[in-house]
């Protein structure tokens, strides 16, 4: 399922319901920031499971061929190198991940198990015919590009973003409407869990009850709650894409 960024709900809208459910309308028991942080926490967890935030970032080809791992990126999906500009893409070529590829940067050479000079290795065969291919590897938060990338002007990174980091720079409207119920119950569960330590007594375990109710409705690790429903909704392919996909398969034309 996709959504417009204009349809995103504000954090406050979710918290307004949560405050009623945990009896903290005046926000004297937990701080306002605590609730905000829990909303982000829920969205990040959903993002890590469903990759629902796709981000594209264009980076000018650096002189040293080293790119910092983009902020908010937790799962790299594609890397392209291209000539031209982001608004006028020319020749493009995918950049592939090379196992154990290690370099100190441009024109410093590289090491890798599979390399064109390794013709005597009894275990790893030397490849042939790919000296013009583009490679990368990631170490310590740096994307190391192969020297062959230097012929291009830009690198395009396509990745899954951490929702709390990527959605809405003001961090105000970040909740997709289809996951509102799950996020709300997540925050209620977390808030009640925090509150029960201070406010529950042996006689009155109000927050334990609230937490348990929310956890049952959420069912984070099962398939009978709002959490699973939210994940399914985020992963669901739009009907147009699905019908086209069926069409392609039926024609055997891709």
């Amino acid at each position, binding site marked *: 399922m996709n959504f417009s960024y204009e349809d995103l709900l504000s954090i406050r809208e979710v918290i307004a319901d949560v405050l009623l459910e945990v009896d903290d309308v005046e926000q004297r028991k937990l701080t306002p*920031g605590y609730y905000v942080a829990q909303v982000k926490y829920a969205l990040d967890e959903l993002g890590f499971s469903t990759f629902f935030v796709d981000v594209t970032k264009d980076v000018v080809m650096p002189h040293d061929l080293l790119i910092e791992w983009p902020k908010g990126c937790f799962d790299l999906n594609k890397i392209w190198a291209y000539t031209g500009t982001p608004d006028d893409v020319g020749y493009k070529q995918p950049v592939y991940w090379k196992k154990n590829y290690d370099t100190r940067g441009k024109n410093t050479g590289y090491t890798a198990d599979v390399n064109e000079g390794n013709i005597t290795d009894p275990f790893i065969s030397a490849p042939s015919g790919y000296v013009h291919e583009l490679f990368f590897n990631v170490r310590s938060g740096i994307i190391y590009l192969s020297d062959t990338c230097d012929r291009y002007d830009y690198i395009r990174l396509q990745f899954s973003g951490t929702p709390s980091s990527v959605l809405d720079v003001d961090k105000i409207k970040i909740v997709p409407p289809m996951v509102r119920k799950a996020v709300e119950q997540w925050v209620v569960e977390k808030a009640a869990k925090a509150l029960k330590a201070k406010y529950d007594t042996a006689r009155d375990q109000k927050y334990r009850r609230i937490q348990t109710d929310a956890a049952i409705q959420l069912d984070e690790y099962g398939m009978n709650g709002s959490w699973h429903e939210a994940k399914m909704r985020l992963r669901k392919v739009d009907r147009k894409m699905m019908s086209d996909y069926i069409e392609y398969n039926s024609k055997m034309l891709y």
Partner: protein
Amino acid sequence: MATLSTLRHIAYDVLRSLNQNYSDAEINLPQVIYWIMIHADRLKKVYMEMMDFDSGAYVNSFPIVVLVDPLNGRNYFGLPVSIYDYREERGIEFITYRPELDPNNPVFTSVQFTRTTIPATRRLYMRDDEKPTPANPYFYRLADRIYLLGVEQINLLEIEAGLRTSFEPVDSLLDIDEPFDFPQELIPQLKKEILAMGLFVIKTPQEFNIEVMENALQVITPKDIPA
């Protein structure tokens, strides 16, 4: 709110009741007023607690100038009146300031200060979302000063505070003909407590015994207050 009784009404009522039984007792008006103030203070405090603070009937709002402590540069203001010392600073209903972001909203919906304590502030700085900022400010109490956290950089001049004010037992400015800011339905209980105290004073020490003490020292507990 119905027209409130004045302090004079209550005081003379109590005085008359005491004089009817003990015509030679030397109890005068200032003494009765003092008793009223200390008992009314306690009853009102219990009453608001019983109401679960879910009413603004006894909250007074004050515009207050914010000062800077020259010793440490912290923003603070002194409490303009005495307030009730409840758990979690419930004597302070709200503190707010106008950030002038949304002129359509009343001041108290703009930015409210969240209550904290000095030991708890350390945790606040562990997470960006909870860190004190002008948009997410905090307050903590040190004796009769309220310190403000998160607004150090914005040159805050004035705040608005809603306070649950307590009675001053001795108040030179007290006008006993002004409406007495006290729950009307508690006046019978108040009178009962004061008469019990009067009885205790009159009979002490000549007729002091267990029975007198039990009668005199009976105090109103929350369950005596009608819900």
